[in-house]
């Protein structure tokens, strides 16, 4: 719930999806490879090495800045942020300090009770990712660190918001919108592990500001903020002061912990990077054509496909999902859209989440085939879900995949319209076995009808249409009465 006295600002770091690193030609596709295999003198920080700016990283940043209505700075430059840490191989990070690429801008997100909220941005800039540290050992054997520099030099875009957010949910919506926008711009791959990191600034009005650093999941952001707000409010209630400090989010515990004092105060001694030249790229923005962005696509889904606002919002909330929807309904949008919207936004997403599965393995043509089977009455909705589950399981386990039709045949899930004899006997049997239910039904008890329908469905193994069963039961019982 949004509260006027909760003040939240976010600094979001996203890895830009370039082929090579920000200042050297090492491949950015390091995740499946061994440590220190995507490293060169530049990103290893060997003495004598020199950075050269990756043009595409700047182009991507310009796209993001344009999409978020930022003002592009006339002369931008890179600066050195000096501090000492084993994952920072030059002992400075090349980032942007007083001359970032873009300033201002905003992102529109969904308000608490529908409507819109405008979250303003402070600035957007580009910087390099440091390497990755793994903490090893224990108190007895001695602790040490292991470093992998594969990640060092990966281009990051940092988007800093004004402290305009008023609740953890709002922060979550901001992040979702940001992520979707970056996906739509094709500058960011949200599925890559560790590709997004968030630092959050939270305060309760009148109290000091706390920074929570390095939150690496979307859920984590909401949890961290919720915990922090509760922690700060609790302190205030007890008459204690909230300390202005930096804290770390402990993902496993869902709590935040104060950082050691050495990390609190840093004099980064920023100065312009002497090995790089300034960037005059304000006019690049003119040449950028933005693709259709989430808001516009949402409006189009409502207008073109007749989606509800909620469905449209869900479907366009992720680029892959939106593309999937459009691929599924392509052959006959008018007919397929209504069913597709519900089945994708409500059913499919639920089933994927349950399996912790990505959308990629599901091919749109197979999905539309499934929808057709439901639409033309070959299978019931319920059995449609059965078929979907089989399809997903096959893909998740990387087994041979069957077409929906084949699954229906193999599992004998087709609605038995022609076999009304079986249906009639099923109804008769159900009524005979459940006299109490009939009594309840006649006395108008809620749920009795559904119970009887369910009994019949069991007997026909779900192959009959519930509506049809309902009608026949009603007929049969009125006959009995008479």
């Amino acid at each position: 719930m949004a509260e006027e006295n909760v003040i939240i600002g976010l600094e979001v770091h996203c890895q830009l999806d370039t082929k090579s690193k920000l200042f050297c030609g090492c491949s950015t596709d390091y995740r499946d490879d061994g440590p220190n295999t995507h490293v060169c003198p530049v990103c290893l920080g060997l003495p004598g090495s020199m950075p050269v700016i990756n043009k595409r990283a700047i182009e991507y940043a310009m796209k993001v800045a344009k999409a978020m209505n930022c003002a592009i700075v006339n002369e931008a430059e890179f600066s050195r942020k000096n501090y000492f840490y084993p994952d920072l191989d030059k002992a400075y990070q090349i980032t942007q300090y007083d001359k970032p690429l873009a300033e201002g801008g905003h992102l529109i997100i969904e308000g608490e009770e529908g409507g819109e909220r405008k979250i303003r941005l402070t600035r957007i800039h580009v910087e390099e990712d440091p390497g990755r540290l793994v903490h090893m050992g224990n108190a007895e054997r001695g602790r040490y660190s292991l470093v992998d520099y594969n990640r060092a030099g990966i281009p990051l875009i940092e988007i800093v918001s004004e402290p305009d957010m008023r609740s953890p949910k709002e922060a979550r919506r901001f992040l979702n919108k940001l992520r979707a926008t970056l996906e739509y711009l094709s500058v960011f791959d949200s599925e890559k592990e560790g590709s997004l990191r968030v630092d959050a600034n939270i305060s309760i009005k009148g109290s000091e500001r706390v920074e929570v650093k390095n939150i690496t999941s979307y859920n984590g952001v909401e949890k961290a903020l919720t915990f922090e707000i509760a922690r700060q409010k609790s302190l205030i209630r007890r008459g204690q002061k909230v300390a202005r400090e930096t804290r770390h989010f402990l993902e496993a515990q869902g709590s935040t912990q104060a950082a050691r004092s050495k990390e609190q105060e840093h004099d980064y001694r920023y100065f312009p990077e002497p090995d790089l030249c300034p960037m005059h790229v304000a006019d690049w923005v003119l040449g950028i054509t933005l693709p259709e962005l989430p808001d516009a696509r949402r409006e189009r889904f409502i207008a073109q496909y007749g989606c509800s606002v909620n469905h449209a919002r869900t479907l366009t909330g992720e680029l892959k999902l939106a593309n999937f929807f459009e691929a599924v309904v392509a052959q006959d949008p008018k007919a397929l859209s209504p069913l597709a919207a519900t089945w994708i936004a409500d059913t499919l997403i639920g089933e994927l989440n349950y399996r912790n599965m990505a959308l990629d393995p599901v091919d749109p043509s197979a999905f539309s085939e499934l929808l057709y089977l439901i639409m033309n009455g070959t299978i019931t909705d319920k059995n449609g879900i059965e078929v979907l589950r089989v399809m997903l399981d096959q893909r998740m386990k990387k087994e041979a995949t069957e077409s929906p039709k084949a699954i229906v045949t193999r599992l004998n899930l087709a609605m038995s319209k022609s076999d009304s004899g079986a249906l009639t006997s099923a109804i008769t049997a159900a009524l005979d076995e459940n006299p109490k239910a009939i009594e309840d039904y006649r006395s108008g008890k809620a749920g009795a009808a559904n119970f009887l329908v369910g009994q019949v469905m069991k007997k026909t193994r779900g192959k009959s249409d519930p509506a049809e069963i309902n009608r026949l039961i009603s007929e049969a019982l009125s006959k009995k009465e008479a």
Partner: protein
Amino acid sequence: MGGELCFSPDDRYNAFLRVCERAPHGDGKLSGTAVAIKDNISTKGIETTCASKILKGYLPPYDAHVVGLLKNAGAAIVGKTNMDEFGMGTTTENSAFGPTLNPRDTGRVPGGSSGGSAAAIAAGMVRMALGTDTGGSIRCPAAFCGIVGLKPTYGRVSRYGLIAYANSLEQIGPMGRNVNDVSALMQVIAGYDRRDSTSVDRPYHHTPNPEIKGLKIGVPEEYFGPGVDKDVAHTVRTAINRLEELGATTHPCSIPSMKYALAAYYVTCTSEASSNLARFDGVRYGPAADTKKTWHEAYQEVRKSGFGPEVRRRIMLGTFALSSGYYGKYYAKAQVARQNVQEDFARIFRDVDVIVGPTMPTIAFKLQEKTDPLSMYLSDILTVPVNLAGIPAISVPCCGRVHNMPVGLQIMGRPFDDERVIDVAYAYEQAVA
């Protein structure tokens, strides 16, 4: 024709830190020519230490751009030369591996920080060597040892592979027995390198030309002021007279920004150095950090034992200059000062073609004569303005000597007018040969 050069010189001056006794070489403009390389330039597979303990044992996995160019030209890389640690010094006494002696007088310093390269040439061990010049580190030893050394225009020679001390000031440059050798070496090493973002596409293809009739020479009053030894000033004025006899005309001029040029230089180079040298933590290269200690303890220990006192002093000065609250007073002001120095030179070059004066205010100091850091810094007064402005400058030996020691004649030129600077030096050299 390719082959192998046998190289085992009598290095009584401690000019070399390491020698390649069998130096392979290929075909090309410098085929078979022995070239020595200052030890802050990365050589693949050959230990590169910057004369510091903190890089002892470091074997670069790559060649500096200029080293690649030398190899392509068929040169034989015969060794790495001694220097002031990380380029910080004017005498090569700041080396962690002992000072280099001046072959002209072994009781004196060879100058710095490229003292090893200069001594190797002066002693006849090699004809050519690479040095680096951040505030005079090629020109000073050239002057003190009586050889020729050129600091190219900033950007003409790639810095990729040069272990950085002060990125915005330094250049790799050619040193040799005479102007022809220096020019030949410049031809090989100059040119664009896409791995250096400050590299400029201006290759050097020039044969030295001694014709200087009509040349207009600026003589700045600040180069002959009270800080300059009277005998040195006199020797240089004699040299300038010689240039006039060859058809040049002299014009007095003034560089007002010299008042604060040295301060601007030292603020800039120590600031950049404090950042550049922070990477030496004993993790990826250099003597091991103690992994039984915590990161900060181990890091401090590595730096305390690995860096000499002058290096530590400059790192601290630079850290201070960049620190919160002081950036505006020091680093930011130093950049404005630089701008003023550039403008002073530009103004003078509207009326003259080159500016000439002594390279150093004195002859080579005796060993251990300069113990006070500030007094050492002050001896750079005549060389640093060139680095601040990014212009080319050469030091060529004067005909006369002072106390039997060489005196350097410094010739400074417009940006990218390295060819003209070489020509004037050549004209003088040929005239007094």
